[in-house]
């Protein structure tokens, strides 16, 4: 990655260097995006989008932050924007269903799993998605980077641009809110193990 940092423009990067860079970060970026959007297809699209943005704006990267921090920051921003757009889209879809197609059920496309575990896993995915949806933006970012990417508090603080204690507080509140959400959830498929 040193090569990448010394290049001043993306035009100077060779295909091999780009491939190395993408291979190094692709799983991390994919996991981050998946943690936010909870959908593999969307996470895949977002991952590509993140890399295009990173490479196209590599000229603007001035080593002030670590490259990984910068990549995570772009991935987080893209994912949050995606969630906002999805929220607006869902509102319009609900309105559309309410006004024009009453009675049609809402379809969720969670992470794909094998058929034998599908029912339980889908229930857990629904539960997780609902619980994550109840978190504030900062709580969600801190929680996702902590649990999905296993970043430590100081790394998360660099990505979010806040203090380490604030990160810890966000993670603590996120866990509490998720548990609160679980306590109010009806008992479902999850216990059919």
């Amino acid at each position, binding site marked *: 990655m040193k090569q990448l940092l010394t290049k001043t423009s993306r035009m100077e990067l060779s295909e091999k260097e780009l491939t190395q860079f*993408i291979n190094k970060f692709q799983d991390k970026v994919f*996991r981050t995006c998946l943690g936010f959007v909870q959908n*593999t297809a969307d996470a895949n699209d977002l991952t590509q989008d993140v890399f295009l943005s990173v490479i*196209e704006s590599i000229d603007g990267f001035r080593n002030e932050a670590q490259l990984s921090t910068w990549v995570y920051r772009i991935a987080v921003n893209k994912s949050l924007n995606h969630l906002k757009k999805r929220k607006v889209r869902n509102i319009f879809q609900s309105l559309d269903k309410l006004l024009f197609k009453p009675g049609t059920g809402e379809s969720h496309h969670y992470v794909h799993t094998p058929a034998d575990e599908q029912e339980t*896993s889908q229930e857990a995915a629904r*539960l997780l998605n609902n619980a994550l949806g109840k978190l504030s933006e900062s709580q969600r970012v801190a929680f996702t980077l902590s649990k999905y990417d296993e970043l430590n508090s100081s790394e998360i603080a660099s990505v979010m641009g806040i203090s380490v204690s604030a990160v810890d507080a966000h993670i603590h509140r996120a866990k509490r809110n*998720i*548990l609160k959400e*679980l306590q109010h959830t009806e*008992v479902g498929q999850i216990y059919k193990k």
Partner: protein
Amino acid sequence: MKRENLKTNSSCRRIADMAWDYHENEVGLQLKNEIEDHLQNCEECQKVYQQTEAVHREIDKQKNMLAPPFISTGIINQLKNNTRRSLSFSYLLKPAFAALILVLMIITGVYTGSIVAGKIYASDEATETDGTVNLIADQHLFQEADFYTPGFEYLNE
């Protein structure tokens, strides 16, 4: 089945709030034993804990997922397309556009210049003609008036 007991029973609420930390082994030994004792005797808290476990399993499952293979190929192809597009614009379209603007400016300049020059020539001619007309009119008037006006001596000559 609602968790009504959890809302009223403070010890259940306390255990439920610690379910996450307990699962992640982030509680002390004493607290761990206390939670385990409680979970053995409380069905409601067991269910909360099972849900917490299920959510953890889901996170672990997602965490172990990898990005689709050949993602880098797709990204590089997209970058190439973008670069090709930007190259073609910057290296061909931009100079062509600039040349076109320059030619248009020259044509407009020449055309405007010719119009302005034509107008100036026409106005010069008009001024000369007006001067002649005025001179003739003055001559006529002064001849009729037939009086001496200083500075217009030449008219009466």
